[in-house]
């Protein structure tokens, strides 16, 4: 019958109309994001977690936070990446202990569909959608400049760095060394790679200072090594003689700034790393990933004895959150 064909045409039209209506409203379900840190202990990382949780609340994400006990244990990190994917994490916000040895685990996770955001310390993988963190090379230069600005005459430098395979520590050291060598009045006397733990760092630094008594500038490139180096300087009574530039905010190093064992701190913005890391993960998951830039520089700030209690430094150094 001809009319039946008309009726069918009308029905088809209606179906298309209904489908069109159905398609434009999609209800967003809760995404799962895993943050895998280098450590869960230091103030730096606690601040990262605070930022991450703020973003997770804001964007209605299910956030899990894990990290190994030591900042050298990349194997545990790899396991955590695999576990997170197995538990259904759709995005991983990752800070790599080892630039190379973490890469395979991240590639695997990406192959299983997880989006990857690197914060603080990147990893050697094409799967990384964006890196959010300090411009480590510039931060290293900033640390070197702080020493150069405040000391006249020759600088004999000792470097206290952590895990050789960690990308950000090496970048910072490279930045500092490049700047020192360009000035002509600075000489890196000794460089050590210690464990990222205050006790080890203190012992190794004390040993280095004993081996090279001429050192008058110490550079420590993250929070635990800075704390260890400050303790070593304090113990050896070299507060006046050694100019220590540390990284990040810790009660011990802030104390050191006031007592003299620490002379300058390069303060990163861990809260922003955590917040922006999770926010980027959300953008990737909700299909707004095209607007992300490959590298986002969270600011760094230099704090010394003079501006220790300026409002900006207070906000940078001391967390509001009661812990």
């Amino acid at each position, binding site marked *: 019958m*001809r*009319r039946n064909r*008309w*009726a069918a045409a*009308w029905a088809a039209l*209606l179906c298309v*109309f*209904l489908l069109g*209506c*159905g398609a*434009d*409203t999609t209800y967003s379900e809760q995404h799962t994001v895993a943050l895998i840190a280098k450590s869960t202990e230091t103030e730096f990382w606690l*601040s990262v977690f605070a*930022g991450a949780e*703020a973003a997770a*609340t*804001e*964007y*209605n994400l299910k956030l899990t936070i894990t990290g190994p006990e030591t900042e050298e244990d990349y194997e545990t990190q790899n396991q955590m990446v695999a576990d997170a994917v197995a538990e259904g994490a759709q995005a991983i916000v990752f800070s790599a202990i080892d630039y190379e040895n973490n890469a395979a685990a991240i590639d695997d996770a990406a192959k299983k569909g997880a989006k990857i955001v690197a914060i603080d310390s990147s990893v050697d993988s094409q799967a990384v959608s964006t890196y959010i963190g300090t411009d480590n090379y510039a931060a290293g230069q900033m640390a070197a400049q702080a020493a150069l600005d405040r000391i006249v005459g020759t600088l004999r430098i000792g470097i206290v760095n952590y895990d050789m395979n960690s990308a950000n520590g090496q970048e910072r050291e490279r930045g500092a060394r490049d700047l020192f060598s360009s000035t002509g009045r600075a000489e890196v006397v000794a460089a050590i790679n210690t464990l990222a733990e205050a006790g080890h760092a203190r012992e190794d630094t004390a040993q280095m200072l004993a081996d090279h008594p001429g050192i008058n500038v110490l550079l420590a490139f993250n929070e635990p090594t800075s704390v260890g180096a400050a303790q070593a300087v304090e113990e050896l009574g070299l507060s006046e003689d050694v100019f220590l530039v540390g990284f990040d905010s810790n*009660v*011990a190093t*802030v*104390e050191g700034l*006031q007592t003299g064992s620490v002379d300058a701190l390069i303060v990163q*913005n861990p*809260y*922003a790393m955590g*917040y*922006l890391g999770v926010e980027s993960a959300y953008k990737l998951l909700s299909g707004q990933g095209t607007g992300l830039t490959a590298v986002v520089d*969270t*600011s760094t700030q230099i704090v010394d*004895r003079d501006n*220790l*209690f300026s*409002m*900006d430094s*207070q*906000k*940078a*150094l*001391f967390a*509001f*959150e*009661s812990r």
Partner: protein
Amino acid sequence: MKGVSRTELRITTILVSMVVGLVTVILCCCIFIFLNRYRSAMVQSARTSTAQAVSQVSNTVSNYLQDMDQAMSMVERSMLEDADNRDRMLTAFLIFRPDVVAVTSYSYSGQLLDCWCLDREPRETISQNLSFDLNRARSSGGAYMTAPHVETIFEEYYPWVVTMTTPLKPGNKAAWVSLDLSFSSISSYINNVSIGQRGYCFLMDKEGNIVYHPQQQLLYAGLKSEDTEALASLADGAYADDTVIYCLTSVADSDWRVVGVSYVDELVNRSVSEMIHLSAILAAVLLAAAVLTSWLLFRLLARPLRGLADAMERFETDADHFTYLSVGGTREIQELSGSFGHMVLRIQQLMATVREEEVNLRKTELKALQAQINPHFLYNTLDSIAWMCEQGRNADAVKMVHALARLFRISISKGHELIPIAKEIEHAESYLQIQKYRYKNQFTYQFDVDPACLDYYCNKITLQPIIENAINHGLDLLVDEGSITVQVCQDGDDIVFYVRDNGVGMSDELIHAILEQGPEDRTGIGIRNVNDRLKIYFGKQYGLHITSEPDVGTCVEIRMPKIQEGNYEAK
């Protein structure tokens, strides 16, 4: 029929389109108006809910500040006591109020005199004391409050506090006393305020400096910004633009203001889009209902009407064999259908009556014909027989009498209309025999009959009028010897008789006049009678067909179906 169907289709389409179009337009208007109103109502309610959240924060902050005032008056009272009592009171106070970080007193020159704090002693050399600012203490004249800052007088303890400083009455050793109240309760409270999913609150002072912001670090890193200058110039109230709703409330008895920020997108647009979705579904359902209704209407009205029209057309083409099945539908249609049914029956009855009358008329005509020819033919024949007897041709006379008897017997045939073809041939032969004597052998005749045809039936007195016509009009005027041939043969399901003569022939006008128009003479009537009877009995396709050529001859073709005995006897 095709044209009718197409017009009908167009009417359907127009009907359905009109209903659907009307419904669509009305729905669109309703949805548009509804959504507009809904959106403005949603914006209003979003503003209200933001304002409520902000006023709650403002109340909490205000309580916090009042609380501080009360604590301060307690501290002031304790300052009037002697040293032992004072220590005891303040220690009890600190135990009672764990959110008070420290109470400090300062000399006229701004020296830290005393510090009361549980479990902690101030460091020996304080590089900078953010809890006390001598210049501000001197210039303010009365009590004042600082913005949140870090407590800096203790070793390895840096909580965020708000400090309230009050001058003491002269005569006291200390000139000012400061109370440091932990800010974390307020900050965590503000952190937890959420308006919608992404909305938040922050604190600023009257000049637009941010006192506390939950995303302080992002602001300070330049990754986020608040246009606090513009906000500072606004009075308390809610301000909505396309994407953001700002709501400002001053905190009572202080120069702090609470700013609530919420996003129109998530509070309003989401529910509006949900509404759009819902109304779209509703509209689709209504449209579907409209289409269905018009389709049903069409089914109820147009389809039975067309059924009726089809039936009428079928009736038109074949009225005899049409049986009417009534069409369903609404009552009107059913009435129409019933009337048509009655009409069909009535027409068929009338047609049957007319045919019956026609048959009766022909029969009467035939009888009249017979009655007419009989006496004339009879006395001519009897004259011939008498003449033969006179001449002593007894054998011929006997033949003639036999032929005459046969002729009459067969033409009566006990009143049957249909007789076997063999009898009809016999009848024709008898007639020809008699006429041949009468016309003194002026013509010859022969028969060519397919023996298979002999057992079929035909109308009686079919050949005789044709032969009579051939003799009277074809051969009578002929100078030469005439000839008549009667041929009977089968043609498929039909039997065909041919009567050929070599007479003068007829013009087409004459043939036409004989077959179609009124009879002019007796033979004309006879031929027409044969033709009419065949058509009435067997249908329009049967009957006579005359072909003639002047001076050559005439051929009359008589066609009728093969009829077995008894088939048509009822008629």
